[in-house]
Structures are given as structure tokens and as C-alpha cells.
């Protein structure tokens, strides 16, 4: 009779054991009580003895495998055991072992999911309330509509009212943050800036797709050299330092009586702290290489956070960069760090479709917000400065002596989907609707019914109208479907583009431009079919 | 018979008191002055008085729903009885019991009882207490021919007989269990026959004959006090009124009633006493007048008594 070797339960709390080493190989003879394998539990390695004598017929759980207790890990066969029976035993045991692990993983997922669970937003209120909670609410004069019930079926129970009361109490007494210390300095300097500077903010979107490529290449190289990675801030800082040298008026300090143009670029880098903000200054930034800049910024940022900056490192700034991109901000209106002339705000990087040479492309963009003091600088030079930065950032490769890439990321609407695929999706989508939500399908069909009603219009004309409607409702699938149908019905590409153009004119212009690009892609796709 | 003249007059007066108490009760009930059920003892006076004449202080009595006569015979106070019938605070039970539950523990009177046949085991228990204490007391249980069909009779008589309890079970066979004639509700003529099932004496006497009842009870009480165990006495009698006041008595004939009225137990005693020269007609008249006065005083007392305090509703449910 074959004997299943089970993962032993070696302690009260033991749930699983790891196979450390099999001390016998398959096919080897084992004697009951002989050491068979080593098992690692939470803390220690245990030797398990063979539970029976025979041949170690099959090792089910190989070395390294984590197996729940009481699950089979091997089969010991006895002389004379039938081969087919043995095979069956092995299969069953293997299935048991595998399913025990599957159960285990499944459980883990649910635990993880449970952790992620968030309090959903209430759509409607179940107005169940326990008598005890109601009494308390009445005593305290509380409108129970404000109390969220956590009892069975959303019943408001005493605990909920108490929690609400506590929250109310907390909310009544605002947390006081004193204007002493850093907060005070920030407040004073910001209001001073606001009071004195004639601030204007201009914004410009920069396509940093190339910069991204550059950074990737640089970091790959640096990694090979064992150096640290460079950040966008590092790259931008180097570029800004270069641009400042070219536009001295932006690298200036404004005083009541005069404007001081500074020879050295002392670049302030705003660092967000837990309870404030500090702007360490990178002196002589224009002389630093990218790697030096990167190391400097890392160093000051780290020390800013641990409060270890020297006082010189906080003085003498001529221009400041502030990056809120990591927090998702796009454009904003930064306040100038006096007596500096300007400050550059860096926004978040977003992926978007961009019309490039008449083609819609998938690009990565970022908004730069430049605030400047109009007392010292006028709009035009400021805009020129910003454009210069944009120019460098959009074509950074030569500056960094790297080969320019050929990044073209043609795009069909919907993130580069194949128009044919889109059409298939449309057809299956309609089928799905007919099955799962016939009401909606009927609604859609009735919308299109007048168009497709028998009458004077030809199929081609009807399909052209459908194209226009599809563009109007910005449905990628519908566009693919009807462009295809229109082409099939003999429509010329120009006719289709005209129909799409009508919708764009009605529907609000540029925002729809990309749908027209999609129409083009669909025409192209039909022609190459 | 060993009764003195005074004792005879005393017993006679008790019978007269019962008669007048009940006649007045009937009238008061008819006038709507007494609530609830009233079961009257008129016609059966000799039974209660004849049995009770043999009892001493310290003896116990378990009565029935038709219990006024028993209590008067035992020496109950008609003032307190009327007050109870009227549901007054001064009544025997503070107005909480009424006619069916009048009790006087000081007289060993364990109460009238609204449950037919319920007194039988109670009396056995009281008799047991006497025996347990060895105080020479006895317990008497009155019950009707109707009650003689209850299981309580069997259990109580069996227990009393095996334990030789000093108990006297007095069946007042007034021929009807409410409306059902004895010959319809049991297959024996004499309830006393039941005694043989328990190996105890059973005797059947004329319940309208004070002296016959007295003598039967005298013997039974003697046996009991001697430790010879219980006796079953059947007193054949008749209630003149219906089962309760308001009963149209359609189940019997006027002739039957008239025949029994001729056997009026009071008239029979009166004749005997006149014959014996115990009293004269005038003295008899005086007794009736005296009783009448006592009854009127009792009724006056009851009518002038306060109703129970509503605040006392929940009192006396438990002993503190």
C-alpha cells in the first residue's frame, strides 16, 4: 500500500513548511524512522523521518516549495504495489498539493484587496438607527443625517454617533499652526513678494518626448558607469542655467532703487518639507555638469529634509525652480522668491495626442509656468526666455551631445488602435448590447433609424451622415464602422473628410480635430485592406 | 347525645344565622349590591353546624364555593363576611376574595374554594400538619356530590388513608352538580360507598338532621383524634336556591323543591327543641329577632365600609 508523506505540523501555530532538502532521492529505499527530508518552519530547520518503509516513489513537493501542513509532499511505495494504483495515488496527491497552494494564493489576494478597501461615497442614506443611538443623537441635538451608520445594514449605532461627536469636536477646534519659525518666514517672504513684485505668470507647454528619450539613454549609460540616475529636475536645472546665462535680465535681483544683474547663476531649488518649504541655492549653477548638478540637487534636497543645510546654501539665489509635477499639478502661478526676478514652475508630465505635421502623435508634454516681476522684466523678454527653455528641452540631444532619436509615435484615436480592430469592436459591442442591454441598443438604433429609413438618400449618403454623427459623438468605434461602410458604399475620401469636417465645425473645433485624424486613419486602413 | 341546652341553642342560632345571612345575601345580590357569583347554603344548614359542632380550636376546615354556612358554623363574623361580599376593605379578604374565597386562618378556616374538589388534598395536608406536630388537631373537608367525581378525591382519600391522617371528608350531597343530578353523574347512590376503595369508614346520613350529622361527625372526629385515620361522611341534603343566584333551576321541579322544604333542617331542630323544652315559641322568635338585628348590623357595617384602596391592588400577592 502506498503511503502519502504529509507536510507535518511541527508546532501549534505552524501553517506551512518549506522543503529545505530531500535527503533521499526518488527510487531510493527508505526505512521507517530514517531521515527523509529537511523542513524549514518560521525559525528552524527540522528533519522529518520517513513515516513508512519502502521506496521513495515520488517527490511531489520539490526543494524550496512552501507547503501547507497535512498536505502530501511525497509518496512511499511498498514492494508489490500496483503501478497503475500508484500512479493514481500520485495524481490525487499532486492535485491535493496543488489545490492547497491555489487556495493559499487566493486567500492572499483577498487579504490584499481587503487592505485596499476604501469607504465608498454614500449615494443614498439608509436611515436605520438604533434606539440607543437615536437617544444619544437627540440628547446631543444631532441631525442624524450627518452620521454614517456602520452597524448591520448600515444601521446607525451608538458608536457612530460618538464618532461623529468626536469628529465634530475636533472640527470645532481647528488645529493651530503657529506663524513662528519656518512658517513665519515663508509667510513673510511670500507676502513681501506678493506686495512688492508686479507678478505676471506665463505658461507654455513643452513636448518632452525627446527629453524623455534623452534621459533614458543617459541613465542607461550612467547605470553602466555605476552613477546615479538623473531626474527631470536635474535636466531642467542645467537647461535653465544655460538659458539664464543667455538672458541676464532673468538672472537678476530687484531692489527698491535698482536692478542687479547677477553674473553667477545661483539656482534655488524649492524643496517641499513635511511642514513647510525651503529653497536651497545651488551656487554657480551655470558651471555645473549634468552629473554635478544632479549630485548637488540630491545633496541639498536631502540635507534640506534633515535640516542640515548651511546658511550660505540658503542665501544669494538669483532664480528659483519649483517643481509640483510629482504632485500632478499642471500649470500654476508661482510666487517669486524676492529679491529674485523670476521663478519657473514645472508641471506634471502628461501623455496626450499632439498634432505634429498634420499627424496625430502620442507625445509627453509638460507645462512650464514662469512668474516674473514686471518691474524688472517685460512680457516679451520673459516669453522669449521661456521659449528658449522650451526649445532646448524639446530638442535636447545636440546640447547633451547625444544622437537625436527618430521618435514618431503615430496615433489613431484611442491610443493607436487599429481601425479595423476598432470596427470589429464596434460590431461585437453592438451584439453585446443587443444581448445584455437591449434597451440601449434599441435607443441607439432608433437614433439612427431616421437616417437609415428608406427614402431618397443613398446608402453612401446615409453612411456619410453616420460618419458625421460618429465624429460628433466622438465614438471611435462608430467612426471606424461608418467610415468603412461609407468607403464600401463608394464614398470618396474627400467626401468622408468633408462629412467629418461638418461635425467638427458643429461640435466645437480643435477638441475634435483628432477624431478627424482618426477618420483619415480609417480611410487609409480601408484602402490598404 | 351529650349536647347541653346552651350548646343546642347556640347551634340552633347558628343555623338561623346562616339562613338569614343567605336570604339577605340573595336579596342584596338581586338588588345588584353584591357583585360576582353567590352560591347560597339555604337548606343545608344542619350539615355545616352539625359537623362544626365537633371541632375545636386548632382544627382545620377546607370549604367550598358554597361556603358561607361553613364559616358561620365555625364562628365567622357576619360583619366581615358581608363586607367581603360587598367587596369592602374591611371584609375578611380586604375585598380581594369575595364570596368564593372567604377565609379565616385564625379559625383554621382554609377558605372557600372556587375550584370544585380542590379542598380535598388541602385538608389532607392540614391533617398531615396536625399529625406531624402531634397537636391532636383534625381537618375537615366539605365537598359536594359533584366534587366526589374529581381525581382529587381519589388522591386525597388514598393519601389520607395510607398515612392515617386525622381528616374527615364531608360530602354534602345536595343531589346536583350544578344542573346534573347525581344519578346522571355517578353510578352509585351513596357517595359514602367510595370509602371502601380506601379501606376507611364511609357513612351516609340525613344531612338535614342536625343530630344525625352531629353524631356521625362526633364519631369520625373521635376516630381521627385517636389516630385511626380518616372517615368519609355523606350528608344527604338539598339546596333550596339554584347553583348560584340567578340560576333558573330548569333542571328540577317545583314539587321536588317543595318536598325538600318540608324537610327544612331548621324547622326540624326547632320542633325538637320545643319538644325537649329547650325553648318556647317566644324565645324562638327572640332568637330570630336577635339574629335579624345582627344581620342588619352586618349589612350596615358592610355598606358603610370603605372600598379597598386602589393603591393596595398589588399588596398581598407575596409575603415580604
Amino acid at each position: 500500500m502506498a503511503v502519502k508523506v504529509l507536510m507535518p505540523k511541527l508546532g501549534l501555530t505552524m501553517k506551512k513548511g518549506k522543503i529545505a532538502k530531500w535527503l533521499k532521492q526518488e527510487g531510493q529505499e527508505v526505512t521507517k524512522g530514517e531521515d527523509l527530508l529537511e523542513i524549514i518552519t518560521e525559525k528552524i530547520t527540522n528533519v522529518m523521518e520517513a513515516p513508512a518503509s519502502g521506496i521513495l516513489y515520488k517527490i511531489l513537493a520539490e526543494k524550496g516549495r512552501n507547503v501547507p501542513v497535512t498536505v502530501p509532499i511525497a509518496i512511499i511505495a511498498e514492494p508489490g504495489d500496483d503501478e497503475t494504483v500508484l500512479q493514481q495515488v500520485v495524481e490525487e496527491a499532486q492535485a491535493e498539493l496543488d489545490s492547497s497552494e491555489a487556495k493559499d494564493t487566493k486567500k492572499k489576494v483577498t487579504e490584499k484587496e481587503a487592505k485596499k478597501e476604501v469607504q465608498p461615497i454614500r449615494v443614498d442614506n439608509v436611515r436605520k438607527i438604533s434606539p440607543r443611538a437615536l437617544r444619544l443623537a437627540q440628547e446631543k441635538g444631532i441631525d442624524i443625517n450627518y452620521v454614517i451608520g456602520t452597524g448591520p445594514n448600515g444601521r446607525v449605532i451608538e458608536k457612530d454617533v460618538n464618532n461623529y461627536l468626536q469628529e465634530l469636536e475636533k472640527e470645532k477646534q481647528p488645529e493651530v499652526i503657529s506663524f513662528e519659525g519656518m512658517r513665519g518666514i515663508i509667510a513673510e517672504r511670500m507676502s513681501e513678494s506678493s506686495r512688492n513684485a508686479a507678478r505676471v505668470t506665463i505658461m507654455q507647454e513643452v513636448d518632452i518626448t525627446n527629453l524623455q528619450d534623452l534621459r533614458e539613454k543617459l541613465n542607461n549609460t550612467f547605470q553602466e558607469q555605476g552613477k546615479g540616475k538623473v531626474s527631470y529636475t536635474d535636466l531642467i536645472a542645467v537647461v535653465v542655467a544655460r538659458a539664464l546665462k543667455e538672458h541676464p535680465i532673468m538672472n537678476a535681483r530687484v531692489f527698491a532703487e535698482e536692478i542687479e544683474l547677477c553674473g553667477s547663476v545661483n539656482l534655488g531649488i524649492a524643496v517641499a518639507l513635511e511642514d513647510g518649504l525651503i529653497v536651497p541655492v545651488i551656487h554657480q549653477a551655470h558651471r555645473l555638469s549634468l552629473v554635478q548638478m544632479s549630485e548637488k540637487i540630491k545633496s541639498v534636497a536631502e540635507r534640506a529634509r534633515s535640516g542640515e543645510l548651511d546658511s550660505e546654501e540658503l542665501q544669494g539665489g538669483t532664480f528659483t525652480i519649483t517643481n509640483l509635477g510629482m504632485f500632478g499639478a499642471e500649470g500654476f502661478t508661482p510666487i517669486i522668491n524676492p529679491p529674485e526676478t523670476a521663478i519657473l514652475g514645472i508641471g506634471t508630465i502628461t501623455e496626450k495626442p499632439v498634432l505634429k505635421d498634420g499627424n496625430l502623435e502620442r507625445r509627453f508634454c509638460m507645462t512650464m509656468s514662469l512668474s516674473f516681476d514686471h518691474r524688472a522684466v517685460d512680457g516679451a523678454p520673459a516669453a522669449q526666455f521661456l521659449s528658449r527653455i522650451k526649445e532646448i528641452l524639446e530638442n535636447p540631444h545636440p546640447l547633451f551631445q547625444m544622437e537625436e532619436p527618430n521618435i514618431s509615435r503615430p496615433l489613431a484615436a484611442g491610443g493607436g488602435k487599429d481601425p479595423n480592430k476598432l470596427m470589429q469592436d464596434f460590431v461585437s459591442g453592438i451584439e453585446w448590447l443587443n444581448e445584455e442591454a437591449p434597451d440601449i441598443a434599441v435607443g441607439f438604433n432608433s437614433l439612427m433609424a431616421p437616417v437609415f429609413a428608406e427614402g431618397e438618400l443613398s446608402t453612401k449618403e446615409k453612411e456619410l451622415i453616420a460618419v458625421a454623427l460618429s465624429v460628433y459623438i466622438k465614438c471611435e468605434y462608430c467612426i471606424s464602422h461608418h467610415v468603412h461602410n461609407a468607403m464600401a458604399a463608394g464614398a470618396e475620401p474627400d467626401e468622408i473628410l468633408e462629412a467629418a469636417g461638418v461635425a467638427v465645425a458643429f461640435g466645437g473645433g480643435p477638441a475634435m480635430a483628432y477624431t478627424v485624424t482618426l477618420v483619415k486613419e480609417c480611410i487609409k486602413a480601408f484602402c490598404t485592406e | 347525645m351529650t349536647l347541653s341546652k346552651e350548646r343546642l341553642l347556640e347551634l340552633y342560632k347558628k343555623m338561623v344565622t346562616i339562613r338569614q345571612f343567605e336570604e339577605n345575601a340573595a336579596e342584596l345580590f338581586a338588588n345588584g349590591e353584591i357583585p360576582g357569583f353567590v352560591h347560597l347554603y339555604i337548606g343545608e344548614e344542619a350539615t355545616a353546624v352539625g359537623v362544626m359542632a365537633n371541632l375545636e380550636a386548632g382544627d382545620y376546615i377546607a370549604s367550598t364555593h358554597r361556603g358561607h354556612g361553613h364559616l358561620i358554623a365555625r364562628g365567622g363574623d357576619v360583619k366581615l363576611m358581608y363586607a367581603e361580599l360587598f367587596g369592602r376593605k374591611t371584609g375578611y379578604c380586604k375585598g380581594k376574595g369575595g364570596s368564593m374565597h372567604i377565609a379565616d386562618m385564625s379559625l383554621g378556616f382554609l377558605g372557600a374554594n372556587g375550584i370544585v374538589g380542590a379542598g380535598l388534598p388541602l385538608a389532607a395536608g392540614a391533617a398531615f400538619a396536625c399529625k406531624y406536630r402531634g397537636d391532636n388537631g383534625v381537618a375537615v373537608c366539605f365537598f359536594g356530590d359533584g366534587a366526589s367525581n374529581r381525581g382529587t378525591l381519589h388522591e386525597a382519600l388514598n393519601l389520607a388513608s395510607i398515612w392515617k391522617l386525622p381528616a374527615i371528608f364531608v360530602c354534602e350531597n345536595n343531589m346536583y352538580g350544578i344542573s346534573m343530578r347525581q344519578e346522571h353523574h355517578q353510578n352509585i347512590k351513596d357517595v359514602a360507598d367510595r370509602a371502601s376503595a380506601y379501606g376507611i369508614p364511609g357513612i351516609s346520613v340525613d344531612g338535614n338532621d342536625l343530630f344525625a350529622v352531629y353524631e356521625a361527625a362526633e364519631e369520625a372526629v373521635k376516630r381521627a383524634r385517636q389516630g385511626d385515620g380518616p372517615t368519609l361522611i355523606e350528608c344527604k341534603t338539598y339546596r333550596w336556591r339554584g347553583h348560584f343566584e340567578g340560576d333558573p333551576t330548569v333542571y328540577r321541579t317545583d314539587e321536588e323543591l317543595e318536598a325538600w322544604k318540608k324537610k327544612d333542617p331548621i324547622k326540624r331542630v326547632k320542633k325538637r327543641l320545643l319538644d325537649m323544652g329547650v325553648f318556647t315559641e317566644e324565645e324562638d322568635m327572640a332568637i330570630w329577632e336577635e339574629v335579624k338585628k345582627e344581620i342588619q348590623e352586618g349589612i350596615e357595617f358592610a355598606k358603610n365600609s370603605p372600598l379597598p384602596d386602589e393603591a393596595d391592588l398589588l399588596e398581598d400577592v407575596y409575603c415580604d
Partner: protein
Amino acid sequence: MPEITYLEAINAALKEEMRRDPNVFILGEDVGIFGGCFGVTQGLYDEFGPERVLDTPISETAIIGASVGAAAAGLRPVPEIMFMDFMGVCLDEIFNQAAKMRYMFGGRAKIPITVRTACGAGLGAAAQHSQSLEAWFAHIPGLKVVMPSTPADAKGLLVSSIRDDNPVIFIEHKMLYGVSGTVPEGEYTIPLGKADIKREGSDATVVATAMMVHKALAAAETLAEEGIEIEVIDPRCLQPLDKDTILQSVEKTGRLVIVQEAVKFGGFGGEIAAMVVEEGFDLLDAPIKRIGAPFAPVPFATNLENVYLPGEEDIIEAVKSVV
């Protein structure tokens, strides 16, 4: 403190009270030489003789009726009705005679009897020997109803019951007879109408009687492992009922689960639930849960009886549904 069984505790209480008060005597079926069907009165016949430990015929009516008469005549009878299921045979003597005499007689009588009887299922004794009929008696004004769950309670409460001047229905759970527990040294009493907190807790109040107290305590252990602390209250006496202790506990926990072995419908648990709703509605943070036997006679087969009886799991489930 000595550890004795529930049965020994009752026996000891009887013995002590018979020694103390010569008016106390015992009567019932097979209580004498035989020592009682469950052995509760063992040894009493030897000590007190046939005058005070009386074997009766199988006459429940006479047992209780005579007890009531003897009590009215000044004695303190302690009759035994072998199984609570037989109470129907002597019900009139209990509820029309014993219970009402004092009131009917305007407070001029007292009926100090303690009717001992055995309730409860678990022995496979089926429908006529397993019932818990406490609710019948708690419904009758004039009766006191005692239902102890431990040896210490059984002894102290039985002594108090015998000394009480009112008729007391003293309900012993037959499955508890063998359960041991410590009891105080020497003579002591436990007042009738005082509940006992068998375990303190803050998350839910569980009111349980007799056998169910033990099941509730077991459930409490399991629940505690999950961080739920229940307060287990044993009323011990259903009439008079210690409402204050229950209400105070519900005030603390806001939740109430009532456990009884008796059939749930019309049971005493309903009375507690109604009382708390009437007098402590505002204390409740969740609906009251009642646990009791289903609406069927007690079955015979062991597996059926197990399903029939409320258990630890039922209590755990009910508590979880309200916390």
C-alpha cells in the same frame, strides 16, 4: 471552598434546612429510601426518618395539594415533582391554590412551600420528560420561580426558597446534577430575585438560564478569542426578576441576546426582551436576539435532540449578528 456537584449542593441545602427547622419536611415519589429518581434526596430518609421524608403514591395532585394544606397549617413542605413535565397533573394546586391563597384571603395566609422539580433535555428522555416549562410558572402572580445553574447558586437559593414564606417553584436542570463547582463554606443564602453576572464583558449582554448559562460561558470563551467580550447574566430567579442587573448590563453593552432551553415561542426570553424594550429601549444599539428551542416537542433520537437544543454555536452566531 469545597467543590461539590449541583446534586450534592441541593442535597446539602435540604439537609441543613431540615436540621435547622423542624417544620421542614420532604414528600414526593420515591424520595425516601430510594433517595429520589435522580438521587437528590439520598441519605435524608436515614437521617430524618419516614416522618419527615415521605414517600407518596403517584399522586402529584395530592403531593402538592397536601403540601399547600400543610403549609397553610404552618409547616414548610418541600415537595418534589420528579419531572417538570408532570406539573400538569398538579397544576391547579400550584396556580389556583398555592399561588393565589394569600391574595384571595387578603394577605391573611402564607403558603411556604418549595416545589422542587427537574427540567431539561439532553438525556434522550423525549417529549414527556425533558421540558423546560418555567414560563408557565413565572406567569402566575404569587409564585416565585428559581432556576439555578451552578452548585453554589443551587444551594444558596434552595435555602432561601425554603425559608421564603411564598410558594417557590425550584427548577433543577437534570443535566446539571453532575456538574461540579465550588460552594461557600457553611451556611449561606442567596437572595431570591438577584441576578448574577457570570462573566463580565462590554460588547453584548447574554442573559441565559440553567444549562444555557454554561453554553453561554463556553461561547464567551470562543468569542473572546475573536475580541468580542460578552457579559453573561444568569437571572437565577425568574420571579421576581432582577430587571436592574439586566438593564444595567444592556446600558453598558447596548446589545442583548437571550438564551433559553425552552421553546422560544411564548418563552420567558420573550418577557425579558419585552421588558428591555419597554424599560430600556433607548439603551439598545441593535435588535434583541432570542435563542430557544424550535416549536416542537423534545425529540428522542440523540441527533435530533442535539439539533433541537440551543448550543454554543447559536449563541456565537446571535452575538455576532448584533455586535
